[in-house]
Structure formats: structure tokens, C-alpha cells
């Protein structure tokens, strides 16, 4: 119950910060439009499918989630910076109330954000002649949830460790890494060697890949990347929850 009350508070804090709208909604939508224009200007003969809307949409959705990470991180570090935390620590709030009270609202925001990215993508699809299958869109949204959880966990992790000055820097590294190495902006499948291995060792590529396969209805290939991203998400989430709990105990030394 306390976690639901804390969740309501966190939602209010997040929705009242205009930066959240600019980055969580505005920026991904702008990139969606820009990359569609880029896609239209690449000659057909080049055989470049990465920025076709059916491949771009899941990538943009995941790109948007990296900003949810940034805002998780900022919210947690801001909460930790002020005396307000002392008040919460002195209250009956326990670590689990904090952790679930951060996770729930940010999952809701993630789902909203993914949905909005898809509404925009479907409209772009209309204009460019690609028809989205509703079932696959829903499946894709589901398949993106482990990634959402993972980015929230990253946000909690760095928000617990860093102050709100250092947090944006670290987060922007992960935002770049996740979108580049995850294959949102480049074709990781075409990359071999050590660099390709690094991309495939990180969770982001599998999150993007699973989302694309889901959207394109390639159910047979979906299992493996989905399992990988799921394991990553759960592991990272537990690590960050344990870190939060440990940090709370050490704050109260």
C-alpha cells in the first residue's frame, strides 16, 4: 500500500517536469520523422532496410526507453539528495516500498511512451505504404517490456550511486551505447569481428532484435533474443534492487 502511495507521488513528480515530455516523448518522435526522411532519400538499390518503418519503429521505441532510464536516474538521485529522504527514512517506508514505488510509475510511463511511438509509426506507415499488423504491434509492445524494466533498473542503479550532477553524463553514455550498439542506428547483423561480438554480448541488441522480430511476425526466431533480454533484465533489476537496499542501510549507519 505504501508503495502505491509512493508511486502516485513519483508519477506526479515526473509528469510535472517538462523535460520529461521533451525527452521521453518529443525526442524519439523527432528522430522517428528524421530517420524516415533519411530512409526516403536512400536509393532503393542500396538495399538498406534498417530505417524502413517496420524496423525503425521498434528501434525508436527502445531508444525512447533509454530516456526513461535517464529520468529514473535523475528522480532517484534527486530524491536521495534532499532532506526529504530523511523524512521518508524515518517513516514506516521500507526499501521494497521505494523500489516498487519507483518501478511501477516508470513502467507505466514506458508503456505509454512505446504506445505513442507506435501510433506515430503507424501513421508514418500509412503514408509510406506499410501496414502494421495489430497483433504484432501488441506483441512487440510486450516484448519491449523486459527492456523497459532493464532501463528502469539501470536508472535506479546509477541514481543510487551518483548524484544528480553526475547522473546525466553516465546515462548519456548508456543512451548512446544502447542505441548504437543495440542496432537502432546501425546494422549490427552486418558487423563481424570483435566489435560485432561486443554488440551481441550486450543486452541492447537482443532487446531491439526481439522487438523487430515480434513486429515483423517472425515468431520462430523470437525465442532466443527474448530469453536473453529477459535474463538480462531480471538480473540487472535484482542487482539494482539489492544495491538500493544496501545503500539505504549504509545511509542509516
Amino acid at each position, binding site marked *: 500500500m*505504501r508503495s502505491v*502511495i*509512493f508511486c*502516485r*507521488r513519483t508519477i*506526479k*513528480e515526473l509528469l*510535472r*517536469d517538462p523535460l520529461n515530455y521533451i525527452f521521453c516523448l518529443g525526442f524519439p518522435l523527432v528522430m522517428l520523422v528524421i530517420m524516415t526522411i533519411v530512409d526516403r532519400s536512400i536509393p532503393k538499390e542500396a538495399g538498406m532496410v534498417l530505417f524502413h518503418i517496420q524496423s525503425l519503429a521498434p528501434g525508436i521505441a527502445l531508444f525512447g526507453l533509454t530516456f526513461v532510464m535517464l529520468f529514473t536516474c535523475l528522480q532517484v538521485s534527486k530524491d536521495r539528495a*534532499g*532532506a*526529504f*529522504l*530523511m*523524512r*521518508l*527514512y*524515518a*517513516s*514506516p*517506508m*521500507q526499501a521494497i516500498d521505494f523500489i516498487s514505488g519507483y518501478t511501477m510509475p516508470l513502467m507505466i510511463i514506458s508503456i505509454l511512451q512505446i504506445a505513442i511511438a507506435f501510433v506515430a509509426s503507424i501513421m508514418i506507415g500509412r503514408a509510406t505504404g506499410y501496414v502494421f499488423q495489430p497483433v504484432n504491434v501488441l506483441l512487440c509492445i510486450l516484448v519491449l517490456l523486459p527492456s523497459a524494466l532493464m532501463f528502469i533498473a539501470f536508472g535506479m542503479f546509477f541514481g543510487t550511486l551518483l548524484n544528480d550532477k553526475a547522473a546525466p553524463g553516465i546515462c548519456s553514455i548508456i543512451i548512446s551505447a544502447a542505441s548504437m550498439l543495440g542496432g537502432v542506428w546501425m546494422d549490427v547483423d552486418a558487423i563481424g569481428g570483435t566489435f560485432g561480438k561486443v554488440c551481441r554480448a550486450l543486452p541492447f541488441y537482443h532487446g531491439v532484435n526481439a522487438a523487430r522480430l515480434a513486429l515483423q511476425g517472425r515468431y520462430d526466431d523470437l525465442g532466443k533474443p527474448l530469453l536473453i533480454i529477459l535474463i538480462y533484465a531480471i538480473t540487472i533489476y535484482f542487482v539494482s534492487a539489492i544495491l538500493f537496499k544496501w545503500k539505504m542501510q549504509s545511509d*542509516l*549507519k
Partner: protein
Amino acid sequence: MAQAIVIKNLRKEYGSKVAVKDISLRVEEGKIFSLLGVNGAGKTTTIRVLTGLSRPTDGEVRIFDKDLKSELQEIKKLCNLSPQETAIAPNLTVKENLEFIAEIYGFSRSKAIEKVRQIIEDFSLQEVEDNKAKTLSGGWQRRLSIAMALVTEPKLLFLDEPTLGLDVLARRELWRSIEKLKGRVTIVLTTHYMEEAESLSDSIAVMVKGEIKAQGSVEELKLQTGKDNLEDAFIAIAE
């Protein structure tokens, strides 16, 4: 008379620094108890330990006959605190801040709304009730921060330098609010203002460099030192 707080040989060290040096205290239920001391005396550290924000290095604390170490979660539900620094959620309105805290302490939604209405009146917060906390002036934020400690109807209330940063009028108004609670709520407040301790407290402990140097009512402290006002008594004790 039942004891709200019983402290035996409480000690708190930060590394080699001893912030609280084996203090022993009793606070009776329903009384206003002041910890009086200059900056760095160890008042905040004592409050932090009593509210579970800091673990004692040594000693025993019982609050409402519950052990601080093993029954902290139960104790927390009965207490509330106004920290030395103003502690509010910046993007919530005054009303939302108060409702949030009331609900965190287990009030139902409807009970919280009712209680908040009353507290807003008690603290004359009507004119700012729908303003975001971060837009308020320092004095208003302070009042909100203290109101947030009272809204949960604690049996035991900790006020760490409650009037810090308040102007004379707001200070007097807060004193009146505190006096209204007399008898119903046990209050531990810290201050370095003599007149504050004098006008509010049933009992005072003078804290100097982590130690309790003297304890008693204002009259008893004056008697003990042979001085005729609290300030002179304090100086005699502290030197």
C-alpha cells in the same frame, strides 16, 4: 507517570569523533522536552538515533517501552519528525505533500484529506495550499515541513531546530501550535534559543560536546546554578 523515552548510556561515534557521549535520559509521556545546546553539541545526532536515521554505537533506547533496535518498525509508526533541514517534496503542492505523508503513515485517503484540511487551518496554510512546495518562500516551506510532522498525529514528535529561519511572528505562531499539543503529544525539540526552551519546555537537558551537563525544569536549572535567568544558567553549565 509513563515514560515515552528511556535512554541508557547512549553513545554515537563517527570514526574517532564522539558525537554523543554516553547520555542517559527519560522523557515522560505528554511532556515537552528540550535539548538545549550550541551548534555541534550533538542534538541532531541524538534525534537521528531516536528516529532510526542513525544506529547507536552503544547504549539502550526504549520508546513507549519498545526496544529501538528490535522494534524500530513499530516505533516509527508512532513517531514523526521535522528534520533540521526543511524536508518537502518540491513538485507536490502543499496539500499533496501533507496528504502524501499522512497516507504513508497509514491514514486512509478520506481520513488523510480530513486531517490535512485541519492542519492547513492550524498552520494558516490556506493561501498556499495549491502552490507547489518549491515555489514557496523559505519560511512557508519551513512551516509546511513542520506541518508534515504533525499531520500524522504522532504520539511522539521530534522537532529539530523547528524555528530556524522563521521570522518573529511565524516563530510565535509556531510556539502557540506547539503549546496546543501539550499533554496530548510527547515532544522532543532541539534549540539553541534560550527563550524558546524557556517558554515551551517542561524539562530541559543542556547538551555540551556530546554530554548532558544538566537536566531539569527551568526553575531547577536556575536553582542548580544559582542564576536568575536561563541564559546565565546555561552559560554557567556550558563553561
